[in-house]
């Protein structure tokens, strides 16, 4: 019985538990509830993955109202992939939150953090699972609003301005998306995404309303994705947010936004409209290439390591969009695999920085000098995550790069392949600055006595680092599901 309601449960559990956290108030209780909720959500997602692989697309009618009138939750390969990413990262990060310095800062309001965290998780899961366009917007707003709160909880006063900046940009993005959905509703009279895609050809691809909807959607989603040059909010937000939040958002939020873009461009509008009638591929490719290079170069000159990673995220988003812009199964596979792998590597690296911040209260590269001697396990985890980000074989990052270059060569665009490898070499530069500082320089005088991070911070970080290696060796799940999702997306056009 419960099994039939799994699609609803994975989002409802965090939602209810978010309220429960506020009711319980006690720090430890709230923590326990949040932990169990994320784990339950992750377990549910895994079961959904198994079901979706066996049974194909799962359609769940919310409240028993059949689509297109009621809200449909729809689980295909791409949806469940996103659910796994979001809930997986959510459950690794949740135990980490307990000890993070943040909680000492807002000790008495810890339950609010857990509540916002669960809401954010719920929103991101909801976006990933819903088959209804307006419902998608609602969940997007849930996740966005809660993430503004989470960012504003940062240790530093600058977190407030960062959150505000994100709020403004994020709201513009979300508004664009809702305008697009409204226009689509006007043109087709439906809000169910599958239904819209079937009705769109009748509404006419030349229809100005549809084209306007497409434009609003793409720009809105690009804002949420932080696609270059609309990325300005991201470095500040990730830098000043609490470490836990940076890790969680960097690993999940932008991926879900990329999902929105993929879902609308490929499923709702369809390949024919998006890429044959409208010349969308070229602008995507150009922006993706710019994103791969300029933020990477900027990252080389940052002194705050969190900011280095934030700019690196913007660059990595370039890879995902590049795969999308190739408009092929190979390209989309690369793009989707990279969502997963990037979640693993950025999650790991931000968690490691959280460990460092916990001990020395800073992520400045000069303060991190010589830190490897004091915190060898933490820095070893950083090196591990860094190798994955660079794309060394046997790490997840290598798999992404392999598929991306393969997709570019498959199209015969060897110059694109060259650009991909060059841009990934820049990652060596910005990561090695950190590694050299941590291993080769003398620690500052006041930080000679720093000790290793506590285990409940270190273990989650290492889980993600090891996952980077695991998914670099055994790719049957990460690549297998992504390939299915890519085929479904291309086939939908």
């Amino acid at each position, binding site marked *: 019985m419960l099994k039939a309601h799994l699609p609803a449960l994975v989002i409802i559990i965090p939602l209810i538990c978010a309220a429960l956290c506020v009711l319980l108030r006690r720090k430890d209780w709230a923590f326990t509830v949040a932990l169990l909720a994320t784990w339950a959500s992750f377990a549910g997602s895994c079961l959904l993955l198994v079901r979706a692989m066996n049974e194909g697309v799962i359609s769940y009618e919310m409240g028993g109202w059949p689509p297109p009138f009621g809200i449909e939750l729809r689980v295909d390969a791409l949806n469940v992939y996103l659910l796994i990413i979001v809930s997986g990262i959510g459950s690794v990060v949740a135990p980490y939150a307990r000890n993070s310095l943040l909680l000492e800062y807002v000790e008495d309001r810890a339950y609010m953090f857990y509540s916002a965290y669960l809401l954010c998780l719920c929103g991101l899961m909801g976006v990933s699972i819903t088959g209804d366009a307006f419902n998608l917007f609602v969940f997007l707003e849930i996740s966005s609003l809660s993430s503004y709160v989470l960012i504003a909880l940062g240790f530093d006063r600058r977190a407030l301005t960062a959150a505000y900046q994100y709020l403004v940009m994020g709201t513009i993005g979300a508004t664009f998306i809702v305008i697009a959905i409204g226009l689509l509703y006007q043109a087709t009279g439906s809000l169910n995404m599958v239904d819209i895609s079937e009705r769109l050809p009748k509404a006419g691809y030349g229809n100005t309303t549809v084209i306007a909807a497409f434009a609003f959607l793409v720009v809105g989603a690009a804002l949420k994705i932080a696609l270059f040059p609309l990325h300005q909010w991201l470095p500040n937000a990730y830098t000043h947010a609490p470490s836990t939040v940076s890790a969680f958002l960097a690993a999940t939020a932008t991926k879900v936004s990329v999902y929105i873009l993929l879902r609308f461009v490929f499923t709702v509008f369809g390949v024919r409209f998006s890429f044959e009638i409208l010349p969308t591929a070229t602008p995507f490719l150009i922006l993706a290439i710019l994103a791969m290079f300029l933020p990477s170069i900027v990252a080389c000159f940052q002194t705050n390591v969190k900011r280095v990673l934030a700019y690196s995220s913007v660059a990595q988003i370039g890879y995902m969009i590049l795969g999308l812009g190739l408009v092929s199964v190979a390209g989309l596979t690369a793009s989707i695999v990279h969502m997963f792998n990037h979640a693993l590597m950025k999650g790991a690296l931000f968690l490691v920085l959280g460990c460092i911040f916990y001990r020395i209260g800073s992520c400045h590269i000069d303060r991190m000098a010589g830190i490897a001697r004091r915190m060898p396990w933490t820095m070893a985890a950083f090196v591990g995550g860094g190798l994955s980000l*660079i794309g060394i074989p046997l790490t997840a990052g290598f798999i992404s790069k392999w598929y991306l270059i393969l997709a570019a*060569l498959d199209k015969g665009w*060897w110059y694109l*392949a060259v650009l991909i490898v060059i841009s990934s070499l820049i990652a060596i530069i910005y990561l090695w600055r950190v590694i050299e500082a941590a291993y080769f320089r003398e620690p500052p005088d006041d930080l000679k006595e720093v000790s290793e991070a506590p285990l409940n911070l270190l273990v989650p970080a290492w889980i993600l680092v090891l996952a980077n290696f695991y998914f670099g060796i055994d790719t049957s799940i990460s690549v297998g599901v992504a390939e299915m999702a890519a085929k479904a997306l291309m086939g939908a056009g």
Partner: protein
Amino acid sequence: MLDTADYIALSILLPLIGTILIWMSGPRPNQREVVTVITATLTFVCVLQVLPPVMAGETPTLTVLQVLPGLPLEFVVEPLGMMFALIASFLWIITSFYAIGYMRGHNEPNQTRFYMCFAIAISSALAVAFSGNMLTLFVAYEVLTLSTYPLVTHNQDDEAKRAGRVYLGILMSTSIGLLLVAILWTWLAAGTLDFTKGGILKGKIDDGLVIVMLFLYMYGIGKAALMPIHRWLPAAMVAPTPVSALLHAVAVVKAGVFTVLKVIVYIFGADFLRDTGASVWLMYVAGATVLLASLVAMTKDNLKARLAYSTVSQLSYVVLAGALATSFSIVGGAMHIAMHAFGKITLFFCAGAIMVATHKTKISQMRGLGWRMPFTFGAFLIGALSVIGLPPLGGAWSKWYIALGAADAEQIIFIAVLMISSLLNIAYLIPVFARGFFGPKEEEQAQMTDTHHGHHGHDDHGTARPADATPKRIAEAPVFCVVPLWITAIGCLALFIYADQLYAMLAPIVK
């Protein structure tokens, strides 16, 4: 009973298990070093177990897992890899003994990390040797680069940091920027990355593009140190001498030229390369590297720097042999991997022994040192003669076969290159030895009483020495340094005598 596949797995796994044991016995240096030596010995024994089936013409295979659809991590042993694995695992034992003497004699810090990284490097070198497809090789190649980075930067000072940058920068950017692209291109064109006799590219790509592909491969394999991407090798000499031995003889550069031969024989196919003429440019680049690097070596006063450039030059012998792509030259090139390994490791061991015993690194300071360290300098002469390529030492054979190959390919000019190079080798290696014995005395020598000097120079090492401050007649490096370098020197001799067996083992790769 264990079958051959298990021994392949053990050869690669044992050093990794050793790494953990070394780490666990970190605080107890004696135990740590015993563990190192035992692991090295067991690894060599395991590698030896793989030899009989390979000699019998089999290709033992071990498939680990599928990384990507159709692309497994797979180990397939063929003669070329067998030879490389034997060299690497045998020299690991010798280097371990040497390292004990050197690292202790030199009071190096962080010795546990050193032994750990060394073991990982050996494991990845063996994985390179045994790899059955280009993906497996690439994986092992990158692990080798990364595991040797902490060794190159062992001293953790600014000089080491700079050397580390050059080392990692060149090796990473070439391997990711060029080699990976070449591998992906091969995969797309041929649909396989398996090492196959006769190559996999014939008929799969345009003849005109073969040159481009070859360029990507040859400059992608930065470890082969073809000019102008050779700079990482001289830069890396800041590391302790056992590391130099690892880089120059045991694993790293050997993995580079090994990969070059492997790619030419099993990916392109020697016939395909010769028919398309795509490798002519490579002959000239390799020939130029041979000569230029020798010329640079002559200008270096630092002994390790001189030897480093000598390695750059010698590596290009192998690349040249591959580019000539005849059966003689390829077997000669493969033999040269072995010959150079033993010759160069002897020379580096000597350089290190001199440094431990006298703290001297510059050739100009070494006048008269031969009387003080006759064993070391004697071994140096043997190593030098082998590198030069004179009988009765191993180096003579590989040069002979490469020259035969050049004649076979009707590229007579490269015979001249080889001859000139031998002369240059004499010009930069023999003076080191000569200075040791014939040069005028230096200040430190002058402190010795003249009567003692020279007359008793050949006294046995074991002669009891007075403990007081009277000048020492023979002040050799620790026994742990001197014995290994004599073992490798004798190896040079043995390789001359048993070269026909080596040839017989390698010949099947081009038949």
